[in-house]
Structure formats: C-alpha cells, structure tokens
C-alpha cells in the first residue's frame, strides 16, 4: 500500500450536495417520484395549516395568551412530508419546533396550542398517537429514539422510527452517541436534521467546520443523504426510501434537510441582532409554500380560489383549535406531585398533604 493524501472537506462537498427535484421556481429539475395528485394537494394543504398555526401562535404570544413559542415558518415542507411518509403505527420523536410534523402524525391542533401555553396536556400526545414527549434539552431525545427503534427490532417488529433535530443539535455529545449506537446496532431509525441555518444566533457555518451536516453520517457508517428541505418531491423520495430501508431491516439513515428558519428562534429572540435583512429576503424566495403552490398550479391541480379556500379553511381550523385550547381547564395546582413515581413516596405524600397553592398574581 502506498501513502494516500489526506482527505479534505473538499472531497466531502463533492460527495454531498442536496438532492433536489423541484427548484425554487416550482420547476422540475429531475424526474418526480410517483405521487398521487390528491397527495400533492393534501401536502400543500397541511403545509398551509402549519403556516396558519404559526402565524396565529405568533400573534397570540404577542397578546400574552401563550408563552414562549418556537416558530416553524419555512420548515413546513420537511415536517409535513416526513410525517406523511410515516405510518400511524410508527413512532415519531420530535423537538419543540416540530408542530407541523406532530400535527400530521395525529397530535390535535388544540394540544399543540396547549404546549406553548404550558399546559401539561400539551406535553402528552393522546394515547393512540405515537408521538414521544418533547425534551427541551437539545439532542437528549436522540438516544431515546435509537433505544425505542432498537427495542422494536428486538421484538421482531418491522416498524420504522423517525426523529428530528436541528443543525445545532449535531454538536452535542448525545447526537454522537446516539448515531454511533444506531450504526452499531443497525436500528430501524430515520434521523432528520432540519438544518434551518441557525441555532439561535449561531449560523450553521460556525456550528461545525464540516462542509455539510450529512457527511457526519460517515463517522458512524450510517447511510446519509442531503436533501433540499423545501422541496416536497425530493423529500418524498429521500424520506420514503429511507423509511423503507428501515422497515426492511437495512438499518438507519441520516438525512440533512436543508431548510431555513424564516422567523425568530423563539418569540423571546430578536434575530435583528445577528442576522441580515438581505439574507432573510433571499431565503424567502425559497419558501416551500410558494414553491409547492407554483408547482401545483403548473400541474393544473390548484386554482387561485382553491388556494384561497385552503387558507380560509386552515385559519378556521386553527381558530377552532385555539378556542378549544382556551376552554380547557387548568390542571389541579397539585397535579405535579402525581407524576414523579408510579406511587407517591412518603415524602411526596406528606408534601402534597401540606401543599397550599399560591394565589394567582
């Protein structure tokens, strides 16, 4: 054997570039996967519901009717399509920003409002809905997703599991340990990195020195793909293939979906401090909703009035869900004693007995 030159990040960038089928103008740049017309229309419709939810939540937060909220605008395509690719009996491990994904997988819009309201029911999917509880601590849920997928494999099921995380999350040790286990034990898991360009104020380029996030999959011998995260066709292709691989026992896949966070990190954040207006304007041109609508119009699947109707329907859906959410009674003030252990310990029994709730401010 002779000396090989050292690998550089240049090599990696040549190997990884985003799979794209539908460009920003809504034009095909390659052959589309086979997707039924209704499914295409449904996809847009769900993305519009996501956007409407987002807009409503933002305005509610400004009015003080909900607490801190992490907006999803710009990321609807990857959330909606990935979730549509997952079967109802399969499991999703989301983050605090995956409202649209959770909605599509069965979480009621009402409960999605309850979450930023800080109501405990917002943290708990209905019994029949296979969505894991959100952990606020970045990347901590990734090993859980691996463990659940692994358990499913041990049980001999043929289910796929899906989990989400941000670009920032890839810097945490738990991302690494989870991915390594996923590779070693070949678990049926698809991990989707929603690379939205920012982790609060840190741009993707300063989060890690690798040219792509996708190439991190190589560290674990895990199949990896980079995909245009605002392109529903590419997403359908890449994600459904990956889920099928998982179901067939062919192991995990790591997907970098390149998208963009059009809003602030959360309602507590002011992106004007660290990000330029120019960047934002440029990225708005890649808006997945605009692109998808253009494509559907081009196919003759969407008229202007139909689109307007989708928005109206979405708004009333969201409005109804909000009303429901606001009518849900607050929990008993001592509810939190009941969910520490299966049975109250002597300490907790005593403390709950002595507990007197404070009056509201």
């Amino acid at each position, binding site marked *: 054997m002779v000396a090989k030159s050292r690998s550089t990040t240049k090599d990696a960038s040549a190997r990884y570039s985003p799979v794209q089928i539908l460009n920003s103008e809504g034009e095909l740049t390659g052959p589309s996967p086979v997707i039924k017309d209704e499914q295409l229309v449904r996809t847009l419709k769900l993305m519009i519901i996501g956007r409407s939810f987002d807009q409503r939540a933002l305005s509610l937060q400004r009015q003080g009717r909900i607490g801190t909220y992490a907006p999803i605008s710009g990321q609807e395509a990857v959330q909606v399509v990935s979730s549509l690719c997952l079967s109802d009996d399969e*499991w999703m491990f989301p983050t605090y920003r995956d409202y649209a994904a959770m909605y599509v997988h069965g979480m009621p819009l009402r409960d999605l409002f309850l979450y930023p309201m800080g109501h*405990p*029911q917002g*943290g*708990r*999917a209905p*019994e029949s809905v296979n969505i*894991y*509880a*959100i*952990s606020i*601590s970045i990347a*901590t849920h*990734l*090993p*859980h*997703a*691996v*463990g*659940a*997928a*692994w*358990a*499913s494999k*041990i*049980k001999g099921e043929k289910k796929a599991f899906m989990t989400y995380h941000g670009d920032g999350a890839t810097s945490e*040790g*738990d991302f690494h*340990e*989870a991915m*390594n*286990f996923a590779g*070693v*034990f070949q678990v049926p898991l698809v991990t989707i990195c929603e690379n939205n360009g920012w982790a609060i104020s840190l741009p993707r380029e300063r989060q890690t020195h690798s040219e792509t996030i996708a190439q991190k999959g190589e560290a674990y011998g895990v199949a990896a793909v980079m995909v245009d995260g605002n392109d529903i066709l590419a997403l359908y292709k890449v994600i459904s293939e990956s889920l099928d691989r998982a179901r067939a026992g062919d192991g995990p896949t790591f997907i970098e979906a390149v998208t963009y966070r059009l809003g602030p990190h959360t309602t507590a954040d002011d992106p004007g401090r660290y990000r330029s207006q120019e960047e934002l304007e440029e990225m708005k041109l890649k808006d997945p909703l605009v692109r998808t609508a253009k494509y559907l119009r081009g196919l003759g699947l969407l008229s202007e009035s139909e689109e307007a109707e989708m928005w109206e329907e979405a708004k009333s859906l969201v409005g109804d869900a909000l009303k429901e959410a606001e009518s849900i009674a607050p929990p008993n003030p001592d*509810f*939190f004693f*009941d*969910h*520490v*252990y*299966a049975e109250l*310990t*002597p*300490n*907790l029994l005593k403390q709950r007995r002595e507990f007197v709730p404070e009056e509201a401010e």
Partner: protein
Amino acid sequence: MAKLTMVQAINQGLKVAMESNPDVVVLGEDVGRDGGVFRATEGLLDLFGNERVVDTPLSESGILGTSIGMAVYGLRPVPEIQFMGFLYPAFDQLVSQAARIRTRSTSRFTCPITLRVPYGGNVKSPELHSDSLESLIAHSPGVKIVTPSNPYDAKGLLLAAISDPDPVVFAEPLRLYRSIREEVPEGWYQIELGKAKVAREGSDVTVISWGSLLPTCLRAAELANEEGTSVEVIDLRTVSPIDAETILRSVVKTHRAVVVHEAPKSAGLGAEVAAILAEEAILDLEAPVSRVTGYDTPFPLPVVERSYVPSDRRVLEAIRACIKF
C-alpha cells in the same frame, strides 16, 4: 440453598429476572463475552443470547439514553455502568431524562430501568473508581437509589428494582462483592423498596448507614457493646426515597444518632438524615447528630484510601463521643 457472595447473588438475580421476564435485557461495556469486569453478568450471554445481553460501545450516555428508549418502548433494560465515577457522563440522561420521562408526559411514558453500578473505595482502584454519588441521586426527583449490604439483600433488592415501574439506580458496594458469603434462596424473591432494616437492635445510640459501610458499623457496634454501649444499627437499603419512619422510630428510642457514609461530608446524604432528625425529633435528641464520612476532598489515591473511608475506629469514637455528650 447455596452460600453465595454478593456478586454471585447479583448474577443469580439477573438470571432469575431474565428467565421470568423476556423483556429484561442487559447492556453495558464488557457485560457480554467478558461477563462484566467484576463477572456480575457472567454466563448471561450464553444463556440469553446477544439480543438480550449486549456489549455496547464505550459510551455511558449512550448506554443509559438508549435504555430509556427501550424502557419507554416496553422493555425492562438493566444497563451497567462500570464504576460510579463514570455515571457522571451519563448524569444528564439519568436525572434530566430517565427521571423525568414520567413527569414530562404526565405518566403516559414511564421508564422502568435498573441501572447497575458498582461504587465505593478501599479496593485499591485508580481515581474515579471509588466515588459514591448517592446524595446527588437522592436530590434528583424521579429516580430511586438502592444499595445492598449483603448477598441476600442484593438479590432481593435487585429483583424489586427490576420490577419497579420507575428508574432505579442499583448501587453495588464493590468492597463487599466477595467479602461475605451467605445463604441465598434460589428463584424469585423481592425486598420491598423504600424500607430500611434494623440490622442490629440496641438502645443507647442509633447508627444509620447503608451499603458499603454496614459491616464497618456492625463491627463498631460490637466493639461498643464490649464497652457496655448498646448500639442499634439501621441499614437504609433504599437511600432514596428515604425511610424516615424507621430512622425516627429508632432515635426516639435511643435519643442519639450517628450517620456513616463514605461520600464527602458536605451536602452528603448524612446531612439529609441529620436534617430529618433536626426537623422531626429535636426534642428527642440528647446529643449532637454526628456524621462519620469521607472528607471534603475527591476520593484519594490507594496509598491513603484506608484513612479516607470511615473505619471501625472512627465509627466507634463517634459512638463514644455521642454517649459521653
């Protein structure tokens, strides 16, 4: 009934659990082919195969983190961390994750994990191989911690921990792995979690301890007895949730208390025991509550560890001082 050491009792407990419940899986560094660095998992791989007995990568947070996912998905994982000092890298997954899955999901998801981890010094190990972290865990709601002081309790508490619907740290006193042999019943039996045991009855002073230092306390009690002092020794067994009732019942009788542990003194679990007494039994106390503990330094090198871990002598002196007060 066979006479077993503690590590044999644990090994037998694991076998019994795996035989009776197919959801029990064992995972950790070197737990498979090697049978565990202390042989606690010896033979399990051959009996139950490599889907249920898994050698993992060197990755404590990964071991515990994936165990959480397994537990949520219906298995009963029994992960091993090689030494308690290597629980630190998995601490986040333990106290912010395993311990809070139930809270976070208002009990939709639960996390029945039994995390086995050897602890304690005086076995001539390198740094971080002798740490005792029971106090850190006792301060973290949502997780329990149990530690046996003898082979019989080890197996019974282990099986109770594996049956528990919530995460339990099962802390195994390294020093006692092979130092005692006693009769251990075959098959399944459980010792209820949360219940302390009066390991020796007495009337003049109560010594409260757990796990690794129980034999020390019993020896000191015997020495005190020769001097005419009757010592009651309480073995907490479950460190968290603590069995305040048993402690109080004893101190109300003896009016004197000494707490013994090998973790550092400050904010150690001895402080919790003393605080319970200061809060609930102040009128019964006829002497200061004294704490015989490790010093407020990192666990030192083997050359001096014998002087760090509470000895028979130090416990005896504390008993004497308490009686004389």
